[in-house]
């Protein structure tokens, strides 16, 4: 049964789509976590839902609606380039309104409820060849953008004041990262759904952050965790007929818990070492 499924075209498409989304989400995740944008990810994906249900009501492709909604809120949040508590509350307000609007569209929509359910929790086995191609194109755009902006993004994420003093354009970078995040979120929605986007964008990067202090290694780890979670989640859902989104979220969460444990146990061991170092410096 499992081997038969493995030979199916839709399974291949799902695995490829999962791989594309995992690599892109894992990559942007490290910047999202470094900049404290987790809540923004959630807002952008909720607004993707609003866009999708709006598109359904209008009778156009919901994927276009996802991109429209995500990009719009990404652009607004990026332009505002708010910080700290103000950003938190602004995002909360936008998110709540967007979700209400999405619910209205959903109730106006006369079609099948499963379509909305797929939006919320993902439908990786429903990815078509054209959709996969589009995912790959958008994914390539995001990765290219991140590669191009890598150093100034890192600089402005960890040390905005000095970065500004060195002429790094903070506001333009803020808009850029939010737009790239909106594209990533719109991609991830198609695989794990609106409610579970965080599992690919935040969890792997948050786990990687616990394990290493090297920026490039954190990036590699985050991508690896996202990739392993997604692919093994898809395969497990073939073995046992539970939704792939459940397996993906569980596996990436297991990585996160393991990373925290690793960090904690290492902290306990290394405490005497820090003391020694402090003495050596005196």
């Amino acid at each position, binding site marked *: 049964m499992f081997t038969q499924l493995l030979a199916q075209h839709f399974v291949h498409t799902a695995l490829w789509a999962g791989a594309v989304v995992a690599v892109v989400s894992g990559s942007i995740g490290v910047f999202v976590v470094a900049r404290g944008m987790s809540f923004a990810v959630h807002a952008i994906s909720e607004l993707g839902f609003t866009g999708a249900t709006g598109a359904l009501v209008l009778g156009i492709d919901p994927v276009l609606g996802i991109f429209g909604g995500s990009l719009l809120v990404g652009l607004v949040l990026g332009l505002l380039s708010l910080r700290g508590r103000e950003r938190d509350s602004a995002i909360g307000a936008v998110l709540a309104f967007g979700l209400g609007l999405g619910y209205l569209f959903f109730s106006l929509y006369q079609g099948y409820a499963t379509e909305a359910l797929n939006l919320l929790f993902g439908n990786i086995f429903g990815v078509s060849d054209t959709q996969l191609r589009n995912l790959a194109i958008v994914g390539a755009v995001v990765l290219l953008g991140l590669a191009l902006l890598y150093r*100034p993004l890192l600089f402005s994420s960890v040390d905005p004041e000095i970065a*500004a003093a060195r002429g790094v354009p903070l506001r333009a970078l803020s808009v850029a990262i939010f737009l790239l995040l909106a594209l990533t979120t719109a991609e991830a929605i198609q695989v794990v759904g609106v409610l579970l986007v965080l599992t690919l964008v935040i969890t792997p990067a948050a786990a990687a952050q616990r394990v290493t202090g090297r920026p490039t290694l954190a990036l590699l780890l985050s991508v690896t965790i996202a990739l392993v979670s997604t692919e093994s989640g898809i395969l497990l859902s073939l073995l046992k007929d539970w939704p792939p989104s459940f397996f993906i979220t569980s596996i990436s969460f297991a990585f996160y818990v393991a990373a925290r444990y690793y960090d904690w146990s290492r902290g306990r061991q290394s405490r005497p070492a820090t003391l020694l170092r402090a003495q050596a410096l005196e």
Partner: protein
Amino acid sequence: MSIAAVDDLALRFGERTLFEGLGFELEPGELLAVLGPNGTGKTSLLRILLGLLRPTTGSVVVEGCPPQERCHRIGYVPQQRVFERDVVLRGRDLVRLGLDGHRWGFGRFRHEDRARVDASLAEVGATAYADAPVGRLSGGEQQRLRVAQALVADPVLILADEPLLSLDLASQRGVVDLLDARRQSAGTPVVFVTHDVNPVLHTVDRVLYLAPGRWAIGMPEEVLTSGTLSRLYGTEVDVLNVRGRVVVVGTPDDQHVHHVENGH
């Protein structure tokens, strides 16, 4: 030949004038301390020198070029702001950002760049903890790394904005000594913004005192006198010398007495 020239600088926010007619030149290797109470434009002056803020009138030239054109590297050491514990960045990454963090792309880390980063780390005595995550280092260690970051690109001018804030005495001395060594070895002038002159008093060449709306510049023994400060504040101010430390008493907000109580 001066490194930087500030000419007839004025800064106003609406009705409020922070300073006007401000002018001075920085000679090679000079250490200028910028003193004064909060809200008199000390940080704004640094932001103007960095090219991040436009003055209302007047001009700034660093090595013949306005700072906003970024023809020359200006090293910047900010107020000590503690890194979050889990920030993904090692000491050497922080220093490297000072070298090429503003450039596009991933960037190849060439051998000579690595050597420069290593040399800067060694210069500030941070080699031992260069590979530790910065969020897990002490405030003093983090500030040493920030000095290395400011020095790694071979700046023509160093600007430091309250770099000793919330550091213990040993770390304060360490940071001052590092900046002092650099100006002596490479002749890089240093502008040092501080609310407390005492940690740099032994090494400072000139003092720029910004009082609300008025300013004075000169040798410390000329500026830090009861006469000069009373004139600046327009009220009776006393400058006392207590066990080799300068204490200012009687300024309208009495900031400096407060610092003495803090045991600086």
